[in-house]
């Protein structure tokens, strides 16, 4: 098992990973009804439009749920806190909380950062500074 399983971008989500490489957290915004959606879908479930554009998110939110994930085959590897973040825009996204696991708590205010681990860049979250 690699330390981080890399994403395999496809047609519907390559924009997201391109944004990650530019340090931007993106979601699809339907250009017909303006609603945001994540994870990506080819069609807007609210108005069935196929037209959308990437929209940059605030990157701010709160921890909706969390667990401590130990590496499956390397017990000495540093565990990662996996979080389900509810962003200020109302979308939920799975990510990691960087820093001491003891910080993990439901409703903790967080903000996005972009970090590279073993060649894989991912959006990550840290406790909000303000």
């Amino acid at each position, binding site marked *: 098992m690699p330390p981080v399983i890399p994403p395999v971008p496809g047609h519907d989500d390559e924009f997201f990973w391109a944004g990650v490489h530019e340090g931007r957290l993106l979601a699809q915004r339907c250009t017909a009804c303006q609603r945001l959606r994540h994870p990506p879908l080819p069609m807007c479930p609210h108005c069935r439009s196929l037209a959308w554009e990437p929209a940059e998110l605030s990157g701010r939110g709160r921890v909706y749920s969390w667990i401590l994930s130990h590496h499956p085959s390397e017990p000495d590897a540093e565990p990662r806190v996996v979080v389900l973040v509810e962003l200020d825009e109302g979308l*939920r996204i799975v990510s990691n909380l960087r820093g001491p696991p003891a910080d993990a708590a439901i409703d903790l205010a967080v903000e996005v950062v972009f970090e590279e681990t073993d060649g894989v860049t991912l959006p990550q979250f840290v406790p909000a500074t303000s």
Partner: protein
Amino acid sequence: MNGAMNAAIVGIGQTEFSKDSGRSELQLAAEAAAAAIDDAGLAPADVDGMVTFTLDSNDELALMRSLGIPELRWMSRTPHGGALASATVQHAAAAVTSGAAGAVLVYRAFNERSGHRFGQPDANRRGAAWNWYAPYGLDTPAKIYALWFQRYMHTYGVTNADLGRYVVVARKHAATNPNAWFYQRPITLEDHQASRWIVEPIIRKLDCCQESDGGVAFVVTTSERARDLKQRPVRVVAASQSHLWGGDIMFNYYHPDVADFPEASALARQLWSTSGLTPRDVQVAMLYENFTPVVFQQLEAFGFCGRGEAKDFIAAGNIELGGAIPVNTHGGLLGEGYIHGVNNVLEAVRQLRGAAANQVADVEHVLVAAGRSAALLGRV
């Protein structure tokens, strides 16, 4: 009535449940299927339909050749693994109710401990659906489910020790079931709390189902035909699935509130309204548990207790033999073995026949709930 079925389970069969069967998955399927057909008093030539999981490695035609079944006219498979374990009942019952098949063999067989283990991480889980999870360390079912369970436990103040009280009951039931992997091996709450964390701070090792090798099978036919067969038939009173917008196979993260299990609540509404029954009409509940918290969520969703009350309901002894609603009387998937939830259907049939190792008195109806599928079975 919406969802009403004219169908009965007339035969059950299984292999032993072990950690290393020493034989092929096809042999396990064939042994279980032959036992179920014999149990029904049918011959292989009477079977003209088959249902299994999309995840089952045993091709219908290979099993047909093994059993000597001359002709099939119905095959279907249920997706999404154990969450649709009870949908196998629905598929088979729908086939015989419609006349598409006369007698349907349902089977599930695998070497899930000595062969491919579901509980292990799989670096090959790649592609669009996993991009949102696998890179962040959600690489096993235990972790994936725990991120959902956390919200339930946080909302209702449920601790891991509360979960342990269920596990003690499951292991107590398994201890007196000779079919169970954990036969004669009960545990205490202290044993549970001393087992290692699998996912902090949610589930410990003893909260996880027993990855097992084994095969199970059952036969479904019409109620009319069932009357002339060998066993006391078990009626399919109602069976349904529930899939709600925003849900996912395992990543139940996007509903407005995931403290509860909205799919299980929707299933409960369907089954109670289709059958006209209430939780009080059910004497035994088989509740799928790949991991302990699902028992809590399903007890509440089906109305055996109120929201957030499962921990107190369990602690008060309600789910034990002799309690208000005995749950997983065979020991559950934690105690008997994980045959992907289909072994729960077999235990329900045994309870309704009066032939269970841990028999409950006067069983009229049994609920077999498996996350996003459920069946209500009844005595004829």
